[in-house]
């Protein structure tokens, strides 16, 4: 390690390293913009819808719905994401269901997000004081109206920090899609490194790009939180 680093600065071929970094930068950024980020956005959106539905099922009075939601969350949380992806992509074809890498990734990650985020949303809904339900009912609202107009808007504010966490986790987890042959940013990095053998350089470059995306996201999170804070006592 030490030797390699000291080599970088003494190596007369320094220019070559810079070349590698520069030439792999565009393909990696392309991988991020065309594949990693869209995959993240799509699966997070689908996952969020699943999560809200699952959270409401858990909170409903109907035992059947509660149990379906519980079973779903338990299975997804109790098994590794990588194993889930392998079952969908490599396992299902043996029973005649073949799904291409992109759709396999979308299904796998969405199911995952849905399960984890449902717990966040359930907790957020439960954190809204009972008086808010009562006030809604007292002006004649149905449960659904109270949920839509009063409870969910407030629960949204509560759930933004934990949801941002899970969003950032998802961006990094999409690198697992490389294992089911989906060419997102990390698989691009693998392909580049496989031809030039500069694994440290290329993988570090990929890491830095992930990091920059996540920094950008934290910034967006702050903005959104501030916007929603206008009605909260400071």
């Amino acid at each position, binding site marked *: 390690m030490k030797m390699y680093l000291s080599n970088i600065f003494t190596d007369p071929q320094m220019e070559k390293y810079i070349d590698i970094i520069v030439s792999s930068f565009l393909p990696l950024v392309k991988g991020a913009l065309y594949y990693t980020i869209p995959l993240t956005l799509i699966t997070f959106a689908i996952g969020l819808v699943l999560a809200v539905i699952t959270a409401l099922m858990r909170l409903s009075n109907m035992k059947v719905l509660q149990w379906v939601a519980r079973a779903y969350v338990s299975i997804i949380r109790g098994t590794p994401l990588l194993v889930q992806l392998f079952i969908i992509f490599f396992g299902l074809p043996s029973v005649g269901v073949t799904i291409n890498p992109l759709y396999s990734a979308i299904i796998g990650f969405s199911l995952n997000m849905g399960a984890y985020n449902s717990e966040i949303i359930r907790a957020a809904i439960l954190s809204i004081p009972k008086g808010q339900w*009562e*006030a809604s009912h007292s002006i004649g609202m149905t*449960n659904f109206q109270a949920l839509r107009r009063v409870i969910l808007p407030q629960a949204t504010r509560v759930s933004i920090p934990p949801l941002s966490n899970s969003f950032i986790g998802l961006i990094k987890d999409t690198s697992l899609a490389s294992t089911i042959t989906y060419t997102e940013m990390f698989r691009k990095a693998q392909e580049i490194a496989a031809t030039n053998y500069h694994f440290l350089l290329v993988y570090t470059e990929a890491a830095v790009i992930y990091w920059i995306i996540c920094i950008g996201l934290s910034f967006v999170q702050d903005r959104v939180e501030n916007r929603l804070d206008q*009605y909260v*006592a400071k």
Partner: protein
Amino acid sequence: MITVKDLNKSFGDLHVLKNINMDVDRGEVVVVIGPSGSGKTTLLRSLNILETPEEGEITIGNQSMDFSKPSKKKQIVEFRKQTGMVFQNHNLFPHFTALENVMEGPVTVQKVSKAKARERATEILTKVGLGEKLDAYPHQLSGGQQQRVGIARALATGVEVILFDEPTSALDPELVGDVLNVMKELAQEGMTMVVVTHEMSFAEEVADRVIFMDQGAVVEQGTPEQIFQQTKEPRTQQFLNRIRK
């Protein structure tokens, strides 16, 4: 206007409402007093079905709820629309401005157009003395102002009955007066009101009838004079002595 018949309610082993019977006429102001744990708040909340009694019947206007039979959600929603409720902790919607809080019922529940609802809400808020605070969020208002928005919100759907659950108990003493004045004004305009409160001076001055409750039962009821000056009930006397100290 309101008829309560043989109402019973328990929380586990605790029998909080014991065979309550009461009537409230249109335009009448009824104040319910009693020591804490006497069931007065539970009774009030039952009128809006925020608590569900196990037995008995409540009639408000031309709608009846018989609690010995399972009731449909829809029926409960319809029943609630006849009454407004003012809470001890106001329970305003923190993500809405004062104006939006008051508009919410008309717009979402009654499907009134936003323009009309805004006009009406402005009118009501002006009436309770908050014409200059329309766009303030609840956390920007004082406790007394918040509670007046709460009253405006309860009024906005055009209900004929308003239920007050200790509306001034959570307020700083100097803010109580503003809220009570708004309530007095409503009473003078002929609003039917059921008020749970510890403000005895309000009860003496504004109530048409006072109900004294203790341990889940109505001990006695009568005009403020009958209750506050001429009561023969030892439990009422004891309670009044304690709070007058």
